[in-house]
């Protein structure tokens, strides 16, 4: 093969890679037997804490996952995490993606849903880029109460070129400052492409979405809602309050919290923005014999065909995680999903009351769904101490907002249908002792 390529050595294939960035010798241990290796891996796995009473949410939520979800996922016909590249022979996979799109469309109240993206952060960044393409404007406003990792990812996407990303401040009650939004939109010399708010926002609070959408539209901008999908069983769907695009993290739909992923980016839009949505779309049609068939559709927007003019540099999806969400939603059904969301909200209400009895107050006054910030003196140290005692006391918000003195002593705590009365007792008891 080297002769056919006109080369003398394999090394020549790497000539284009600068010496300074090439891999050095890999520092790997000696080979081990299967027995030794499984022993070593078991020891590593034993360091995971699975005994915690967890109040950690912060964008990733622990829910009960019905056994049917894993059973469907582990079927050999489906068990590939990769998107189909010769799709039409994989009718079963295409059908599950079509059903995924249909279920998410119903949940968000918008008609066009992509086959999924990497995670909530990349879906949010893609949504921001959609607003730029659709309006041919360069300036996007994002609330600081959108998940900070999503803001950071969007900032990375915006780093090159002329696009600008501006953060909108929050008010003392923790919601996005609409007066600031209004004045940012009023700068007609720098017209705004899109306005992005989270619902619930990064503090777990309910932001004034309908009003923000109205202000955005009045200035000719598009409105993007970053949503948590389980919450949509009890909150208004983005399509109802005028959002043009919905983005979000699909992990709560049947995907276990697992390190940084893999997770599931949700992205949906209005019919008008159909040509702007990046990623794969599966459609339903009929074959020559009139039988129902599923196809990848609108492929011409994608990178393998449109090269540098593509709607995104990503033309793949999270097929297996999308299947998990599909199996989850199909298993719990609309009533089940409503029960999950309502049970989480009820547990959070009990958590707030128990904390208040112990003298621990919320940071923000705005309404929440199932997650909120509390004020605990010396929050980081208390958090570490409780972790030693088997209680994961949410997230110290100073990690996300290191420069905000108002959040220096704040813990973001969340409850779901898995939160028990005993968990609440352990957290409140631990916090009470720590601050006494």
């Amino acid at each position, binding site marked *: 093969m080297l002769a056919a390529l006109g080369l003398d050595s394999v090394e020549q294939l790497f000539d284009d890679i600068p010496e300074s960035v090439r891999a050095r010798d890999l520092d790997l241990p000696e080979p081990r037997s299967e027995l030794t290796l499984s022993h070593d891996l078991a020891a590593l796995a034993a360091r995971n804490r699975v005994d915690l009473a967890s109040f950690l949410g912060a964008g990733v939520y622990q829910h009960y996952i019905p056994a049917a979800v894993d059973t469907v996922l582990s079927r050999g016909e489906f068990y590939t995490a990769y998107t189909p590249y010769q799709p039409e022979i994989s009718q079963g996979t295409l059908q599950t993606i079509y059903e995924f799109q249909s279920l998410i469309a119903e949940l968000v109240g918008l008609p066009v849903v992509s086959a999924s993206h990497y995670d909530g952060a990349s879906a949010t960044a893609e949504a921001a880029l959609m607003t730029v393409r659709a309006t041919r404007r360069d300036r996007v406003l994002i609330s600081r109460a959108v998940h900070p990792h999503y803001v950071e990812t969007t900032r990375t996407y915006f780093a090159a070129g002329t696009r600008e990303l501006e953060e909108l401040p929050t008010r003392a009650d923790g919601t996005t400052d609409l007066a600031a939004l209004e004045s940012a939109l009023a700068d007609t010399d720098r017209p705004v492409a899109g306005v992005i708010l989270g619902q619930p926002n990064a503090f777990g609070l309910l932001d004034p979405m309908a009003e923000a959408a109205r202000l955005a539209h009045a200035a000719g901008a598009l409105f993007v809602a970053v949503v948590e999908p389980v919450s949509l069983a009890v909150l208004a769907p983005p399509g109802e309050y005028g959002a043009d695009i919905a983005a979000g993290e699909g992990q709560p739909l049947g995907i276990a919290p697992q390190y940084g992923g893999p997770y599931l980016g949700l992205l949906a839009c209005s019919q008008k923005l159909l*040509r702007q949505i990046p990623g794969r779309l599966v459609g339903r049609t009929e074959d020559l014999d009139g039988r129902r068939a599923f196809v990848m559709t609108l492929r*011409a*927007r994608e990178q393998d*065909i*449109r090269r540098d*003019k593509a709607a995104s540099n990503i033309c793949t999806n999270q097929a297996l995680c999308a299947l998990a969400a599909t199996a989850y939603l199909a298993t719990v059904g609309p009533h089940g999903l409503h029960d999950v969301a309502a049970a989480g909200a009820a547990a959070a209400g009990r958590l707030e009351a128990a904390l208040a009895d112990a003298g621990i107050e919320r940071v923000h006054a705005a309404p929440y769904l199932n997650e909120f910030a509390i004020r605990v003196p010396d929050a980081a140290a208390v958090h570490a101490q409780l972790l030693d005692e088997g209680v994961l006391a949410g997230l110290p918000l100073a990690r996300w907002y290191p420069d905000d003195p108002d959040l220096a002593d704040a813990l973001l705590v969340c409850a779901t249908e898995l939160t028990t009365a005993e968990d609440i007792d352990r957290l409140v008891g631990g916090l009470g002792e720590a601050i006494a």
Partner: protein
Amino acid sequence: MDLPESLRYTRDHEWVRAEDGEAVVGITAYAAEELGDVVFVELPEIGRKLTRDETFGVIESVKTASDLFAPVAGEVVAINDALGDDPELVNSEPYEGGWMVRLRLDDPAAADALMDAAAYRESVGG
């Protein structure tokens, strides 16, 4: 090759029909044939001002998607809404029902600088 003598042409395979300070723009029969069945044409909004060679839309066929370039500078005064429901007009009647935009020319003589039918025929080797 069907190339009406009354039109002007560009290397991007667009035709221009100049009339009374305005210009109607579409793509040539040759381009339509090369693209294959056209399934979607994205057109600009009325009132948009285009500079010469600026991308004003996208034409999508079953096998590819290509940008549409303004052959002359001007303001969009009309777009062919019929392409929304019947994009295949670009294939079936590229010089009539398949037109895309009508521009009010910044320079009424701008189209004169473009190729005539003979020059375009030569440029595509036909």
